[in-house]
C-alpha cells in the first residue's frame, strides 16, 4: 500500500445520498480474477449510456455527458465529495478497488457504510467524515469555481480549502498510522516478522511432521 502523504487534488462532486456498492461497481464485473482494472467500470451505470459487460473495451462506449466524472472540469479528480451513507450495500472489496484504480484517494461525505469504511482503509483510501453543513459548503465551493482543489493533511487531520479555511476531521489513530506509513493488514503483520519466524522455528522443532512434504 502506498504511503498517504499530504496532497492537494481536484474535487469531483457526486451529489447523491446512499450511493451503494452496486452503483460503485455493478455485479457483472465481480467475475474478474484481478483487483486492478476496475477503474473504467467505476459508476458504470451512471457513467455510460449502454450496459457494460466485463472484459469490454470501454473506450468506444457512449458516455453520459451529464455525469460529473465525464465533465472536463473534473478530469484527474482525486477527491470525491459525496453525500450521506456512501458505500452501503454488499461487502464487495471491488468498490474500493474501483475507486482507487480510477484515481480517487479521498472520499468526503457526512457518513459512510460500515463494511465499506473498513474495506476502503484496507485499500489505502482515506474516508473523511464532515458535518452536513461543511459538506454543503464544499459542494457550493466546487460548484462555484472550476478547478476547485482541496488540500488533505492527514497528519494534522485537516482539510484545507482554497481560501485557507481548515476543516478538522476525526480518524481512528490506528487507521491513520496505517495510511501514513503505507501499511496494510499484511504490512502490519509483517512488522511481527521476527516473532513469526521464531514461532515457526519452535513449532517445526516440536512437530516436524507438520512441515513434511511427500516423498
Amino acid at each position: 500500500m502506498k504511503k498517504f502523504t499530504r496532497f492537494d487534488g481536484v474535487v469531483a462532486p457526486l451529489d447523491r445520498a446512499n450511493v451503494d456498492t452496486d452503483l460503485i461497481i455493478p455485479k457483472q464485473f465481480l467475475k474478474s480474477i484481478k483487483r486492478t482494472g476496475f477503474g473504467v467500470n467505476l459508476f458504470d451505470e451512471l457513467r455510460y449510456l449502454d450496459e457494460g459487460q466485463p472484459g469490454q473495451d470501454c473506450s468506444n462506449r457512449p458516455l453520459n455527458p451529464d455525469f460529473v466524472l465525464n465533465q472536463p472540469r473534473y478530469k484527474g479528480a482525486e477527491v470525491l465529495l459525496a453525500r450521506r451513507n456512501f458505500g452501503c450495500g454488499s461487502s464487495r472489496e471491488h468498490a474500493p478497488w474501483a475507486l482507487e484504480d480510477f484515481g480517487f484517494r479521498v472520499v468526503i461525505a457526512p457518513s459512510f457504510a460500515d463494511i465499506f469504511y473498513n474495506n476502503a482503509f484496507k485499500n489505502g483510501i482515506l474516508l473523511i467524515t464532515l458535518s452536513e453543513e461543511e459538506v454543503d459548503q464544499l459542494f457550493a465551493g466546487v460548484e462555484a469555481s472550476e478547478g476547485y482543489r482541496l488540500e488533505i493533511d492527514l497528519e494534522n487531520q485537516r482539510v484545507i480549502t482554497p481560501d485557507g479555511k481548515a476543516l478538522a476531521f476525526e480518524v481512528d489513530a490506528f487507521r491513520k498510522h496505517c495510511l501514513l506509513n503505507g501499511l496494510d493488514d499484511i504490512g502490519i503483520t509483517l512488522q511481527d516478522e521476527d516473532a513469526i519466524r521464531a514461532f515457526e522455528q519452535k513449532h517445526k522443532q516440536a512437530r516436524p511432521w507438520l512441515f513434511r512434504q511427500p516423498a
Partner: protein
Amino acid sequence: MSGQTLYDKLWNQHLVKQRDDGTALIYIDRQLLHEVTSPQAFEGLRLAKRKPWRLDANLATPDHNVPTTLKERAEGNSGIKDPVSLIQVQTLDDNCVEYGIEEFRINDPRQGIVHVVGPEQGATLPGMTVVCGDSHTATHGAFGALAHGIGTSEVEHVLATQCLLAQKMKNMQVRVEGELGLGVTAKDVVLAIIGEIGTAGGTGYAIEFAGSAIASLSMEGRMTVCNMAIEAGARVGLIAVDDTTIEYLAKRPFAPTAEQWEAAVADWRELVSDPDAAFDKVVTLKAEEIEPQVSWGTSPEMVTGISGQVPDPKAAQDETVQRSHTRALEYMGLQPNQKITDIKLDKVFIGSCTNSRIEDLREAAKVARGNKVADSIKLAMVVPGSGLVKRQAEAEGLDKIFIDAGFEWREPGCSMCLAMNADKLGAGEHCASTSNRNFEGRQGYGGRTHLVSPAMAAAAAIAGHFVDVRSLPANDATHAQEA
C-alpha cells in the same frame, strides 16, 4: 483451573501473538487453494511485490468450475466452455507455476474437491491449522485440526505471512450419545443437529462433536459432520483424535513415516478435550431418536425425519418463523402437512464435499444395486469427490452398479453443489441432493434442493419420491453403514 478443550489446545499451539485489540496472530500450517477465491490474492501479492511465506504449506486444485462429463474433461482446460470459468482455472495453474506451489491440475488423478483431496492425501493432519478460501473448510476439523474458511484478503494474508488474524471463539460441545439405527448416517446426524440448534446456533463458537455415536463414525462420516458445522453457524467444527483417525492417516502421501510417525501419533493422542474442560454451551442428542433426514425448506435448519411432514407455517409460534416458513413453502412448491414421502423428485445429485467420498458412494451403490432409476427422474448423477475416489469406486465396480441402474457417472468436482459449471437445476425442479446448502437458487435459478444422505438420495432416485431407506429390503441400504 479447569482443563482445556480440544479447541483451546489447538489455539494455544498456534498462537504467535496476542494483540491488545483482542485479535491474535495464529500460525497456519496448511493452506488449500482453489480457482475461485485465490486469483485476487495472488494478484495482491504481485502488486505489493511480496512472495509467499512458505510454499510447501500450500496445496492447490481446481474444483468449483471444472466440467464433470468425460467428454469435456478429456479436453483438459479447453473443455471448460464458460470463458470466465476457464480463465479462473487457467489463472490458478499460472499462479501455481509462477510461485512454485504444488497443484493437482484438472486431469491429475489426485484432483478433486479441496476438502476431499486434503484429507485423502494426508495433507490435513491432526494438530494442524488449515485454511481455505471456502466456508466448508471446517471439514478438516474431523481430524482434530483447527480449520477455518476464509475470504480472499485473508488468503493473501496467509500466503504472505503464514498467519491468520483471528479472534478466539467460544467453546460448544454437541454430544450425540447412543447407537445410530440401521440406515441412519453421519449426514442424518448433522442435519438433525442443525435442525436442533438452528443455522445460527453455532455462531461465534467452535463446535466440538462428541459422544459415542460420533466416536463410532468412520473418518468419512466425521468429515460429513464437520463439513456442515458452518450450516449451524460455526466456522469451526472439531472431532477428537482416536484410533479411527490414526488408522485413516497411516501411509497417506503427506503423512509422516517411520520414527516421525510414532512421535506424531503420540502427539496426536493428546488432541482431545480434557475431562474437566469447560464448554460455554453443551447440547446433547440421543442417537436412537435420529431418523433419516430430509430438508423441506430453503435453509438447512428446515429439516425433518423421513416419517415426518412439511410443517404448517400457521403452527409456528413466532411470527418471523411463520413468514419464513410460508416463503420457503412457496419457493419449494410444497403444501403444509404434506408427507415427506410424497415429495416427488426431478433430479438426484450424489456428490459434493459433504458426501462424495468412497463410503458415501458405497452406501448409495448398495441401494442402487439391481434397481433402476424411476422414469420420472430426468437426471440422476454421481460425482465422485476426487480422481482417487473415482478410481477406487471403479475398482470396486460401483460405477457399473450406478450406470446399470441409470445414474450418470461423472468426473470429480463441485458440480451441481453450487452450479458454477454446467450442472444445474431448472426452475421449479426438485432435487434430492447430498450437498450442504438448500438456499434459493443454490443449485440453479428457481431450483428446489432437498438435502439428504447418499443412501436416501439413491433410494429417492429409484422410487421417484422420498422413501425411508430403512423400509427397503434387507440386502439394500439398511446395512449401508456397515460398509
